[in-house]
Each structure stands twice: as structure tokens, then as C-alpha cells.
């Protein structure tokens, strides 16, 4: 297959041609309330061709590999017809062609755990939460996905990559006086099914959080000093700065290039942010991106100053910068675009959680994330749990805490970065341009941010 695909790509007649063929199997389990709602086995098979002609991409997907030569012709024909009006040329940053085979290297293989055992394990977690007095409903989801991806391009790169992805999410619902509240727990990773065992205590915490939140007051809207736990701080850096750092936001926009000029100060000296594909075992681990570029640890902010961004070959080429191995595609159905891997705030000098809250008279401690969104400048995300901070101490639980703000102001307003970095994967993922959920990770120590807008009553 290797020589055949490289040969087809080289003979396409386009400025550049790449071919991806993907074969994946996925097992999914979902409990809803007392019922096993879904047990599913899926086989995803398909491929794509992406060609560049005079700066225009032609992208074609298919399910039948016998049609590959015809699909290449269609992709070239479409791009050529459209590019007749184009005055732009194709630009891809140069990389050394790669010949690589990446085999699965699992600590614990999910395929060696029977479906029966998986159902008992996750059903047990579900039942444990359901049995908690005050819990009215539950949801436990698990998936494992094993993929084999073959990639070839017209420059001679060939990568045969196997990978695994696993995740679980559990939530418990409690209802009191017409108010429904949720508590949740999650786990994820790429190489170790054992991570999903022994999670009873986390189920108990999720149930307790739901029960307490159903009885908690809604936060009073306003501007607060907020301390985020490592999980929420990780979501914050992903939403608030990671997306902004993706090269397609910047490469062809001179104003954005001014706003995101390398060397510009974004925060205090103790703010350091990076994105890495090198953390083996995390869902954001990626040896090669989906353009065949080896991944790396990419510093975005060092000592408070912007030093890098996340590139595909096209965005790097247009900015005359180096590709960083961030071109990722959700599946064969989509073209690769600049995406994050494991995005992190590095440890800072401000000790522990207790050190961050001791000087806060009135603030909020926000824990875990129920998701978030950004439009580049503004962001919104919702805490999974939250407590008031009063006079330097944790106080009462509150609910429905949504943090919103301006990315640039908020980065400047990070007034504390603790030294307790942590990263914890879940079953969710990142969404962009219709490609969701892409497996990513995010990590951080506790951070303190002043003047955060909290939407409330």
C-alpha cells in the first residue's frame, strides 16, 4: 500500500497531494439512570484526498478505497476549476519527508477486557451513584477506540500509525424544590485501561456535589476574584488562549498579526503557557500530526511574553514560521486544521491553593468544568462546582457559576499561579469548524484571577 499511495499522490498533478485512509473500531457503553441504554460496536472506514492548486484546497472523502484514483482526479479538478480566479499560490512550510510506523504501545489493552467485564465495571459505578440517597438520575458513558491510519503525500512522507483513545464520563443528578443540579467525574487516556478501575470515591464525590448543589443558592452576579482548580484553569487556558494561538486565526490577518505579535507581553513574569504533543498516555499525545509532521512542545508564553503559536504547514508557510505539528483532523471526513494537543499553564511561584485564597475577602473557588467557548476575544465557561471564598477561607457552596471575560484582560489579571500542576483527562473533546470532539488534554496548577465577570442573578 505504501508505494502505491505515494505514487498516486505524486502523480496527482496538483501542487501538493496527500491521502489518508483510516480504519477504526469503537466500543461504546452508556448507562442512563438504572438502564443500560446503549452498547454499541462501530466500524469506521474511509479515506480522503487533499490537494492544493494555486492556493486552493480540493478535499474529497470516500468510503470505498477502490475509488481512490477517481477521487484524486475529482479533488484536482475541483481545486483547478475554482483556482482559475485565484491570485494566491499554494504555500506549505517545508518539512523533511517522514517514513514511520507507529505501533500501539499499551500499558493495559481495552481489547483484552471483555465486554461483560466493562459493563460490570461501569454499571457498578452507575449503580453506586444511583444508590446514593438524593440522587434522582445518572449517566455513565465509556468508549474505547482503536485506529489504524495510513498517510502518504506527494513529498514522499509515509506514516502508518496505530493509536488508542479511551474515555469515560459520569454524572449524577439531584433534584430539590424544582431545582436540578449535577455532579460529575471523568477519566481518559490513550494507553491504560487500568485508569478506569477504582473510581468509587470519585463517583461518591460526584453524587455528593449534585446533592449539595441542588440545595445551594445561585451565585450573585458581579465581578469577583476567582481561584480556579487545575482542571478549570486548564479549560480556561485552552479556551482563552489556546484557540487564539491557532495559526489560522493569524496567518492571513495583518491586524491579528499586530495583536498577536511575538514579543508582546500578555501577563506577569510568572505566566508560562505551552502546548505539547509529547505527553505519552494523555489524550493530547500525538507523535505525528495529520500532515505527517512530528509534534513537539511548543511554548506560547514564556515569562509573560508571547513566543509562539500553533501551526499547520500552510499557516506556518504563510507566516514564514516553523510548523509545530498541530494540524489535526477529527477523522477522514475532515481536512487537518491547526488544533491544540495538551495545553498547559506551567507551575508558578505562589505555593499552594491555601496560599492563593488567604488574602481574598470575597471571591469564588471554581472547580471542574462543564464546558466553555470562545470567540477569540471573549470567553465563557461554566464551573462544575463552586464555593464562595470569604475572608481567606472556603465558605458556602454556590451553583450555576458561569465565568465570562475578555481573554487579554483576564490573562493580565492572573495574579497568582500555584506550584501544584495537575492534568486529568476526560471523555470530552475540543470543537472547531464542525470537528468535534477532538481528543485533547489540558493541565494547570491552581490560578488566581482578579475581576472576573460572573453571570448571576
Amino acid at each position, binding site marked *: 500500500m505504501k508505494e502505491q499511495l505515494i505514487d498516486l499522490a505524486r502523480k496527482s498533478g496538483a501542487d501538493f497531494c496527500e491521502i489518508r485512509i483510516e480504519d477504526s473500531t469503537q466500543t461504546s457503553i452508556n448507562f442512563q439512570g438504572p438502564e443500560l441504554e*446503549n452498547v454499541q460496536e462501530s466500524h469506521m472506514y474511509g479515506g480522503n484526498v487533499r490537494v492544493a492548486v494555486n492556493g486552493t484546497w*480540493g478535499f474529497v472523502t470516500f468510503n*470505498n478505497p477502490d475509488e481512490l484514483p477517481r477521487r484524486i482526479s475529482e479533488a484536482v479538478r475541483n*481545486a483547478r476549476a475554482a483556482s482559475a480566479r485565484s491570485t494566491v499560490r499554494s504555500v506549505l512550510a517545508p518539512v523533511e519527508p517522514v517514513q514511520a510506523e507507529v505501533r500501539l504501545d499499551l500499558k493495559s489493552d481495552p481489547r483484552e477486557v471483555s465486554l461483560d467485564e466493562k459493563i460490570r465495571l461501569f454499571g457498578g459505578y452507575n449503580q453506586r451513584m444511583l444508590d446514593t440517597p438524593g440522587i434522582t438520575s445518572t449517566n455513565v458513558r465509556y468508549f474505547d477506540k482503536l485506529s489504524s491510519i495510513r498517510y502518504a503525500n506527494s513529498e514522499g512522507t509515509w506514516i502508518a500509525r496505530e493509536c488508542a483513545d479511551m474515555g469515560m464520563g459520569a454524572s449524577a443528578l439531584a433534584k430539590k424544590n424544582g431545582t436540578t443540579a449535577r455532579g460529575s467525574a471523568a477519566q481518559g487516556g490513550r494507553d491504560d485501561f487500568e485508569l478506569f478501575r477504582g473510581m468509587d470515591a470519585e463517583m461518591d464525590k460526584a453524587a455528593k456535589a449534585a446533592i449539595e448543589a441542588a440545595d445551594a443558592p445561585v451565585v450573585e452576579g458581579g*465581578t469577583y476574584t476567582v481561584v480556579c482548580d487545575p482542571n478549570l484553569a486548564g479549560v480556561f487556558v485552552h479556551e482563552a488562549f489556546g484557540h487564539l494561538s491557532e495559526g489560522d486565526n493569524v496567518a492571513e490577518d495583518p491586524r491579528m498579526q499586530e*495583536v498577536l505579535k511575538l514579543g508582546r507581553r500578555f501577563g506577569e513574569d510568572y505566566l508560562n503557557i505551552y502546548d505539547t504533543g509529547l505527553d505519552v498516555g494523555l489524550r493530547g499525545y500525538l507523535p505525528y500530526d495529520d500532515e505527517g509532521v512530528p509534534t513537539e512542545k511548543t511554548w506560547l508564553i514564556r515569562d509573560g511574553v508571547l513566543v509562539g503559536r500553533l501551526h499547520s504547514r500552510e499557516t506556518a508557510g504563510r507566516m514564514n514560521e516553523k510548523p509545530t505539528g498541530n494540524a489535526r483532523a477529527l477523522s477522514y471526513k475532515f481536512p487537518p486544521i491547526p488544533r491544540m494537543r495538551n495545553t498547559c499553564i506551567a507551575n508558578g511561584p505562589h505555593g499552594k491553593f491555601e496560599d492563593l485564597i488567604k488574602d481574598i475577602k470575597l471571591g469564588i473557588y471554581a472547580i471542574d468544568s462543564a464546558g466553555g467557548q470562545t470567540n477569540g476575544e471573549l470567553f*465563557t465557561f461554566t464551573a462544575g462546582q463552586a464555593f464562595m471564598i470569604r475572608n481567606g477561607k472556603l465558605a458556602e457552596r454556590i451553583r450555576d457559576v458561569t465565568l465570562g471575560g475578555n481573554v487579554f484582560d483576564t490573562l493580565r489579571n492572573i495574579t497568582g499561579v500555584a506550584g501544584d500542576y495537575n492534568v486529568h483527562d476526560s471523555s470530552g473533546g475540543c470543537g472547531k469548524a464542525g470537528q468535534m470532539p477532538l481528543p485533547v488534554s489540558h493541565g494547570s496548577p491552581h490560578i488566581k484571577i482578579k475581576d472576573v*465577570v*460572573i453571570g448571576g442573578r
Partner: protein
Amino acid sequence: MGRDFDSGAPGASNTGKATSSEADTGVYEKPAATKFTERLGSLADAYEMYKSEGRSLSVSFENDRLNEIRQGESYGISIRAVKQGKIGFSYSSKPDEIDHVAQSALRMAPWGKPYDYEFAAKANANQSRPYDPACGEISVERSVELCENVKDIIKSIDPEATTDVSIRGGLNSTRIATSRGQDCREDESGFGYFVSARISEEGNFLTVYRGRGSARVIADDEILEQARETGHEFKIARKLLPFSRGKYRVLFAPHAVADLLLPIVVGINGMNIARKTSRFVDSLGEELFDKRISLEDDPFHPDAPSGAQYDGEGVPAQKRPIIERGILKGFVHTLSTAQKCGHAPTGNGQRSVSSQPAPGLHSVIMAAGDTELDQMYRDAEGGLCVSQLLGTFTSNFLAGQVSGNVSLGFLVKDGQRAGRVKNCALNVNSFDVLKSQVVSVSKQREWVGGEYLPWLLVDGIGISAR
């Protein structure tokens, strides 16, 4: 084996939508006569097969220039097979794998969900939907020209705007056959456009967009008119106005009204009714909202981008009231949730070919009000017009909460949008807002995804701001 069910391709027939197995004669063989279904029928106690096949083309401009021509082909088949009272499910996107999918579904059955309801019985559709084969014949050259024209219009209004435009079209064919004799096929057509103007400058990142889908090709004139609207709103939004926190009268534009309706959409979902997590469980027939709030689910609306003659389980879809003059009239169910709740099936099993059905609405049509939009702007004097919210999907919808950043909001002055307000957020209880805070509902409506919605003027909305 298996190719009998696998025959046919999207767009193979221009006859529109078949409405029953009888109407399918001549297009497909009846699966009951095929070898495969006979064999599956002998192995499984009951079964349902779902096949989907489609093709699409899109042209996209990014950063003022042609970026990509995307052509997609999709294929998938899934089977639900019942063995000893339990349902196994399997899916594949690989052609010629129908045997493998059937075997896998049967293998999964011992662990599956109890088969405590029945797959769809033979039934004809209640009504047809439009089918436009032209959606499958989108011209690359013509679409590129249309995108260029959109770009030129926006640039003529504000040369500093960066434009993104996309035009897409496609055809899809689905077929569902069950062991209870249902065999329904739908040929679906789809067309859509997206137009946006944006600028990212120090202190003001701004994106204004418009777009909609339809089962029919949308006329160039509408797309060009929306480009003008986008350009004008963009121009207004470039002016930033000071703003402070407080309680405001707020005019929610249709896009933001869609966010306000999310707690209702979640609350009427049969899954949440069956699990008793919805506050609507015992509320059918109760007046929960303002009398001017009426919602219906219309799977047959000629301009809707979504909808179907049959739902994802082969049950004929229905046009049904959800809220009628403030009174809760109906839930949306799959066959399973209907059975659990003791309700009649509603034809709302939504799914892709790779997933099992879950309850969902086809197209939400909200009744128009009696107030002209111009009057509503005058009535909102000193308040806000909220066009877009950010991040509302993370809200606690079961509790009625809708919270998010106001990503595009305007201060209303002299009866019009005077300029943009930023760095503010809202957190409302939608159940309360739609019950007792509605001032007026507009005569005008717009499509937002699969929803056709008016503007809502609402009193007493708390806005947080820096």
C-alpha cells in the same frame, strides 16, 4: 448477500419522497423479499436496519479568498437486532459489511437494552417534504462567483471587514426496514449558506454572521441581501459604547431567542420525562408560559433545513403543538421513551446512521407576535438588543438556566442599534423570563438552524459587566 438492501444511490430518483413500501416499488426491491432480511429475520427475534448514503459539495471562502472545495461521499449502515428480549446495535461505514454489522449486532444483544417496546410497524407518512435535486448539482464555478459577490457587497459597506463565505449543497438517501413490515425510504435534499464579516483589532474582535439551510436551493438574491444585512450590522457594531451592569429591558434577536428556548427543548425531551429529571413531568396541560408563547414541531415545513417524513426509527413524523398559548401540550418521544411514559409515539426518534435514536425536535416553529420590529426597538429605548450569546450550551438547562457572554449586543438609542456593548454577561432563568417578563413578540421571524423564531422584548434582565 446484503447488496439487495444496499442497492440504490442518493438522487437516483427524482420522484421526491416515497411514502411507504408500496410507493417504493420500482425503486428498490422490497427488503422482505431479499435474502439478507430473510436470513436476519431467521436469526433475530426482531430487527431494524438503517442505511444512509449521501454526497455533498461545498465552496468556502476564508480571509477574503477562495480556500477550499470540499466534496463528500458518505455511506453507513446500522442494525438493531433483538435476541432473547435484548437489543444489540452495530454500525459500519464500510460498504459491503452488512453481514458483519448483522453478526456484530447479534453478538452485542445479550448485553443490550431490553426490547420492551416494538420497532416501527408498517405505516405511511402523514405528509411529504420538498425535494430539490438541484441541491446535488451545485456548480463550483457559479458558487465561487456568488461568494465573490458576497465578499464585494460586504467590502463595499466596510472595506476593513474580513469576509468568510460558504455555499453547500447535497443529497442524501435513507432507508429504514423493520421486521414488523415497515420499509420507508426518504430522498433528502439540502442547501445552505454562511456569510460573515469580521475584524480582529486591538480591543475589538468582532464577528457578525448570517446563514441558513433549506431543503431547496436558496435564491442568490436572498444570500446577497443577507450579505448587505451582515455588512450593515457589522458597521454598527464597530462603534463601541460604554455600558454598566444593571437590570435592562432586552430585545432578544432570533439567534438569542433560540438560546432562551433551550431549557424548554431539554425539558420536553422524552428521555428527561422518562427519567423524571424534567420539571415538566407532570405539567401537561398547565399554563407555564406567557400566552404569547406558542411552539410547534413541524417536520414538513417547506423552508426548514431539517425535518423528515419518518423519524430515525421509521415512525411517521407529525406536526404537533409543544406549547400552545403558554400551555404545555406535548413531549417528544422515541418508541422507547413513549413506551416508558405510557404515551403514544410522536415520531421524534432522531439519529445519525451511526447512533441509536434519541428524542429530538424536527423544526421548532414559534408563533409570530403582533408587534412590528421597529416598534420593539422604540420600546427597548435605553436597553439592549442581544444578537448572539457565547457558551450557553454549558448552562444548567434542566433548572431553566441560560447563561453566557453577550458576544454581540447593542445599546438601543433613538429606536435603533446605536453601537456595540461588550464585556458583559447574562444569567437568566428562562422559565421565569418566558412566563412573566415578556413585553412583546415580533411579527417578523427568521430561521436559526432548524428553528423559525421571532424577536422577543423582555423586561428586567440582569446584565453583569466589568
